């Protein structure tokens, strides 16, 4: 029997098809070109090869940039996750005077001081601190920018863990620090992993901060390296760039799949931006 809602369903498919094509087309290039024997700007797979990847690994700048990106991202993840974890625990479990004002101020500043407008004072700050053209400067700047968001999400997550677990452990005679490490951390490991993943993707993908703060090519992370590859004068090596971009994108996709599995994107809410 024919479902009378079928007509409206067909209409929706007709409307959705071009939208899906619009979203997929540019991405398709990234999936196809790295494996293409004669890579071009047009999406076409004419024979399969891994040659483009080999050329990435032969390019010293490219390999070096991978190492730099890894150093920066891992440092930011460790720094932000640790600091945010401690602070969020206190903010979630301890109701001190001015806590709400503090949180309010943090939301405000994190959404106001962002983008290129923030780069001018941040550049001067790094200049004064002697951190221009250092990885430390990039790490600290990225950490300061991501910290408030990580803090809120973790606090929200901690708020959702009932206090009774900790109270029960305290009644049983555990010390407050034991409670934190034996009871609280295992309960919140899911949230901590998600935060670590989010912080990773944000710092791994960031272009503007290293672009403004770093000078020497040898210190560039992948984001800036790719930009110099495709914006430099002369004929760009399309195959190499696409393979490089492909490798650079994979960890981000992987991290998001992990986040999605753990939480679903509903959770992801207002973090981006």
């Amino acid at each position, binding site marked *: *029997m*024919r479902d*009378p*809602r079928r007509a409206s369903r067909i209409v929706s498919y007709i409307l959705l098809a071009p939208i899906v094509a619009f979203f997929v087309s540019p991405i398709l290039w990234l999936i196809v070109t790295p494996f293409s024997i004669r890579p071009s700007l047009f999406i076409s797979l004419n024979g399969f090869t891994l040659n483009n990847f080999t050329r990435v690994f032969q390019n010293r700048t490219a390999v070096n940039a991978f190492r730099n990106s890894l150093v920066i991202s891992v440092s930011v993840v460790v720094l932000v996750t640790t600091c945010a974890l401690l602070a969020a625990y206190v903010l979630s479990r301890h109701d001190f005077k001015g806590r709400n004002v503090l949180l309010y101020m943090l939301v405000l500043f994190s959404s106001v001081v962002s983008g290129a407008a923030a780069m001018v004072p941040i550049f001067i700050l790094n200049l004064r601190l002697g951190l221009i053209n250092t990885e430390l400067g990039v790490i600290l700047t990225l950490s300061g920018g991501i910290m408030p968001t990580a803090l809120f999400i973790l606090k929200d997550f901690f708020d959702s863990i009932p206090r009774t677990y900790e109270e029960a452990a305290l009644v049983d005679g555990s010390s407050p620090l034991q409670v934190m490490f034996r009871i609280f951390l295992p309960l919140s490991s899911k949230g901590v992993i998600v935060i670590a993943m989010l912080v990773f993707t944000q710092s791994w993908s960031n272009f503007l901060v290293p672009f403004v703060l770093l000078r020497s090519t040898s210190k560039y992370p992948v984001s800036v390296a790719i930009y110099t590859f495709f914006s430099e004068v002369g004929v760009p090596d399309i195959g190499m760039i696409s393979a490089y971009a492909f490798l650079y994108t994979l960890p981000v996709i992987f991290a998001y799949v992990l986040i999605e599995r753990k939480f679903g994107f509903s959770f992801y809410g207002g973090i981006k931006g």
Partner: protein
Amino acid sequence: MSWIVLESVTKRFSNVVAVNKVNLQIERQDFFTLLGPSGCGKTTTLRLIAGLEFPDEGKIYIAGRDVTMELPKNRNVAMVFQNYALYPHMTVRENIAYPLFVRKVPKKEIERKVAFVAESLQISDLLERYPQQISGGQQQRVALARAVIQTPNVFLLDEPLSNLDAKLRIEARSFLKRLSMELGTSVVYVTHDQSEAMALSTKIAVMNQGHVLQVGTPRLIYDTPANTFVASFIGNPPMNIVECRFDGSTCVLDGQRIDLSDLPLSEFPKERGFIGIRPENIAFHTKEGDLIGEVYVVEPLGFETVVTVKVNTSSLRVLVFEDVPYKSGDKIFLKLRKDKLHVFDESGARILRRDEA
């Protein structure tokens, strides 16, 4: 042809059969209740009649027309949902008027009808308020008003009393019964509450696991349940159903023998079977009876008293309307009213009396 007909209607959700070959005939003057535990398919059946779901097999007729594959708007039905679905951004007046507004009825006409319906449902003074500003009972009436204003072929009510507290529910139930008599067309009502079904309906269909087990008047279903499920679902406290072994026309219950040869049954179970008797059809006796047992617990409820009696491993509930002098542990004889005793075969189906066949 009946006003509403469901002809072997089947509905599956992925691989769960929610409604399984259901046949129903509902007359225009019926207050027809679909009764069953949650997940039995009663709400899906209602949604099939509304056109919110479409059957995989079978046919649905409303007012003589095949509407099986018609959208809800072409069926002329009105529905009241469990949560009333009153629009929070519209006043009570706008909510009630909405069906007419959608059908582009002239403004004057809408005003007149809203006033009339509000009057008869006693909500005239709430018209300018918003749904969240009125009580649950009032919300329920507003939802009814929005249905009543439509003059539909059938009213579909999905557990409309379940969101009210116990006291209000009884009041709303009486109101609903009065109202249904004035509607002039059939009502299909879904509930899991057997007392609601008994109080309101002209006919009840008891459902379980997608099947309709029995259809009939409340009296018929109460007095002659088709099987052990219906028997135990209807009535509070429910019918006592005890498994026993049959030796010809004698029922053997944990070594005690009950002679049932007076019962005019078409046959007796071969070996295994069940007897069923409602709590009000058992009487206490100090010296003699059909069974001997031990008082387990006495629960006085004011007007009536429920006594649970252990007969070896089985337990029977007895409903009496006077104070009882017994206490836990007392030995007691039970007399069963044989004319009210039912026998079920091994599969749980009630064995008919010879005059019923």
